[in-house]
């Protein structure tokens, strides 16, 4: 650690730099400050979430009242329907879950949590956001080109996605793919930054096991992303050439192979699930420790199981393709690996539940969301066992059972995980508290309708209803009134849930300007970000902290206070 000590020595004599007040552009638009870049990612993510939510509203209305005029959209044509579901999926994963959970939280929290003044490469960080913003613009512009937005599902299986005579979106499809590719590049740059920062720029005294779980999770997620996305970037180039120039990498008529794309996609796509899961798990870990005043149960075990999950996630991808034309013998291998992944994940969740044991639980809004994450994610987890079992997947593949299953994982991850973090870190981000009562109204208004949307969809899936069909009237077995009532019920639940986001938005905006002043450490938490002023100035800390202990020393016997910040010498 010789190098670290020598730099620490120079740091202690170093004043935190005083800039003159930067103008609007360099403060908000071309900022290199990790906190501002984190905000940019967050607000872009929220806007995209609204677009994605609007799309969900439109196609749910179409499913409940097929062919009727949807208020705020008009009549949904099949082409528009396909484009809506495709972009809803792509947006929610690539432009909501990724930027909010990894980029926004990672940018905002990593330097604060490991006690340094910024990311190691602030300008690459800025570049990462700018590329991301371009990807957003390309994506949105793809809705308005002749032919409309791409409608071949977010998995973009060729030949449908590769040839415009099949998908009928000659401009939408390549633009969509280009947007996804740009987004990958943005997150590769961001990921390298996160990993390098955490490896190299930790505060003096912060050893491996002193790093908060949140930071670990973002770093491991970035590693998974980096290792899995490469083949898909190559594959996306090939698909883009197929679409625009007419090469035949995926065209069977000329010796190409459509199944290759499925492998490339899911080799990335399955680790991607864990890429977004892990940061949400990290945020939940921070929150349940703080609000139950408990040390995280078996920190090291959680860390090892995370690594195990990450590595295992590379061995399971073909369970998405059981019935997609892969060799039946391969299904056995992938069933075994898939079901095995339940072991580390279950162990991780057990550790989280065990953390609550003997605690002093205070049900503030962030804690409610964190607990809801555990309760709801369990449903997503156990229903995954059905789909990972090859024999069962024959029936369930591409039904609403799958759809309900992954919404029970992705909704807790992307939405509940996001609300957990925003309610928890809001005081740090804006220096003010959010309103507690409205927070609770928002909580119940989100969680109850959420279950009302997706529990009926499990039933529809069990009845054999397939995904991505814009009107079930063509299928006599599915057009029964009983099943249709479930669809209507799910749709109205979705509408109710969307309406309940309005209190959140108002609470959020009002609290930024009018909320109660928060002070440095409103939750009495241990991790380093709470030792910085709220909101942290450029350069974060008045004096860069030194770390003396692990991050979760709550309620240590013999101490008067029930928390023990990482940077307090004793």
């Amino acid at each position, binding site marked *: 650690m010789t190098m670290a000590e020598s730099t620490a020595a120079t740091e202690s004599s170093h004043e935190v730099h005083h800039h003159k007040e930067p103008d609007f552009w360099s403060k908000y638009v071309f900022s290199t400050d990790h906190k501002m870049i984190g905000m940019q990612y967050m607000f872009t993510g929220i806007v995209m979430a609204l677009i994605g939510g609007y799309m969900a509203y439109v196609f749910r209305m179409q499913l409940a009242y097929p062919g009727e005029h949807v208020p705020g959209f008009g009549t949904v044509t099949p082409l528009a329907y396909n484009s809506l579901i495709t972009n809803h999926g792509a947006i929610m994963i690539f432009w909501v879950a990724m930027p909010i959970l990894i980029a926004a939280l990672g940018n905002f929290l990593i330097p604060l949590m490991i006690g340094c003044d910024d990311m190691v490469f602030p300008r690459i960080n800025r570049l990462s956001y700018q590329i991301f913003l371009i990807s957003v613009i390309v994506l949105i512009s793809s809705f308005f080109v002749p032919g409309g937005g791409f409608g071949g599902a977010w998995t973009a299986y060729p030949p449908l996605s590769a040839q415009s005579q099949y998908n009928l979106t000659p401009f939408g499809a390549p633009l969509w793919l280009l947007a996804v590719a740009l987004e990958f590049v943005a997150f590769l740059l961001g990921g390298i930054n996160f990993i390098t920062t955490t490896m190299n720029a930790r505060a003096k005294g912060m050893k491996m096991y002193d790093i908060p779980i949140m930071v670990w999770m973002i770093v491991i997620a970035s590693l998974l992303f980096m290792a899995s996305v490469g083949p898909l970037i190559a594959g996306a180039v090939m698909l883009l050439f197929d679409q625009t120039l007419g090469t035949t990498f995926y065209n069977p008529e000329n010796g190409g192979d459509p199944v290759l794309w499925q492998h490339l996609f899911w080799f990335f796509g399955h680790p991607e699930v864990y890429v977004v899961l892990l940061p949400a798990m990290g945020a939940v870990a921070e929150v349940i420790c703080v609000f139950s005043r408990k040390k995280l149960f078996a920190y090291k075990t959680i860390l090892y199981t995370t690594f195990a999950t990450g590595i295992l996630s590379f061995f399971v991808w073909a369970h998405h393709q059981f019935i997609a034309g892969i060799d039946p*013998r391969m299904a056995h291998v992938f069933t075994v690996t898939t079901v095995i992944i339940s072991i580390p994940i279950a162990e991780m969740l057990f550790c989280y539940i065990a953390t609550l044991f003997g605690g002093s639980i205070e049900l503030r809004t962030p804690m409610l969301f964190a607990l809801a994450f555990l309760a709801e994610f369990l449903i997503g987890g156990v229903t995954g066992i059905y789909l990972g079992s090859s024999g069962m997947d024959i029936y369930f593949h591409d039904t609403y059972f799958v759809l309900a299953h992954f919404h029970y994982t992705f909704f807790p991850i992307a939405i509940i995980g996001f609300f957990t973090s925003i309610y928890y870190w809001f005081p740090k981000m804006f220096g003010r508290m959010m309103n507690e009562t409205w927070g609770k109204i928002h909580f119940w208004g989100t969680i109850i309708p959420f279950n009302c949307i997706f529990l009926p969809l499990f039933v529809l899936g069990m009845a054999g209803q397939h995904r991505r069909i814009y009107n079930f009237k*063509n299928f006599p077995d599915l057009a029964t009134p009983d099943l249709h009532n479930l669809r209507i019920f799910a749709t109205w639940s979705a509408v109710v849930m969307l309406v309940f986001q309005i209190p959140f938005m108002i609470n959020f905006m009002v609290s930024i300007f009018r909320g109660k002043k928060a002070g440095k450490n409103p939750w009495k938490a241990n991790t380093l970000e709470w030792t910085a002023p709220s909101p942290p100035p450029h350069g974060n800390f008045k004096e860069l902290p030194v770390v003396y202990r692990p991050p979760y020393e709550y309620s240590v016997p013999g101490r008067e206070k029930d928390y023990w910040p990482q940077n307090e010498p004793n």
Partner: protein
Amino acid sequence: MIESLLDNVSTYGGKIDNLFTLITIIVGVWFILAEAVLFYFIIRYRRKEGVKAQYVTGEKKKEHNWIAYPHYLIILCDIVIIAGAVMVWYEVKQKLPPADEIIRVTGRQWSWIFTHPGPDGVLDTADDIETVDKLHVKVDTNYHFQLESKDVIHSFSVPVFRLKQDAIPGRVITGWFNPTKTGEYDVQCAEICGIGHGIMAARISIETPEAHQAWLDEQSKMDQTQRMAMSAENQIENREDNDNG
């Protein structure tokens, strides 16, 4: 459990339903247990004035066993589930029983073409009967189907058989089924295949041997163009009925 929502009319469908029940019981117990413990902790350990939280690291062996033992049990459950899943998969997808009859199923944007071997029972002969969006099969017969696609990826799904298989252009994939009950049921396309994905609906008619023979005789009298025209007409009628209903 699934059967209460949708009939099962194939020989292996019951096994898939049983697998569903098996998994439901195993994961259901775990799920209820985990949720119960979670909610018990939330209620039991609510904040009380003057009560300090305990300091439990989870690193001690005794504490860690609380995690370790359930985790061994999970491995056991996993083995049971894997065994069940693999056996069903092997029967449905891998080991094909000898065929009594072979049909060809071809997906295209956006309809299913079913090629019946006709009276001689052999495909690719002059007496083949091609139909659009209507498959006629005999009850209690081992069928092999050769699945092909003309353009994009489709997925041949017969929910009442619990059967599904993607059709990949360029490949010929063989599968099997054996219907156990007569009746008429949905055939769906389960993989998005363009704007017409939602209308790519077909029907499968499972008939008694006599009824099937009668259908064959009737078809053999017509030539192929007449047959195609007939089935296309039926299809349009069906859709109109549905749209009105």
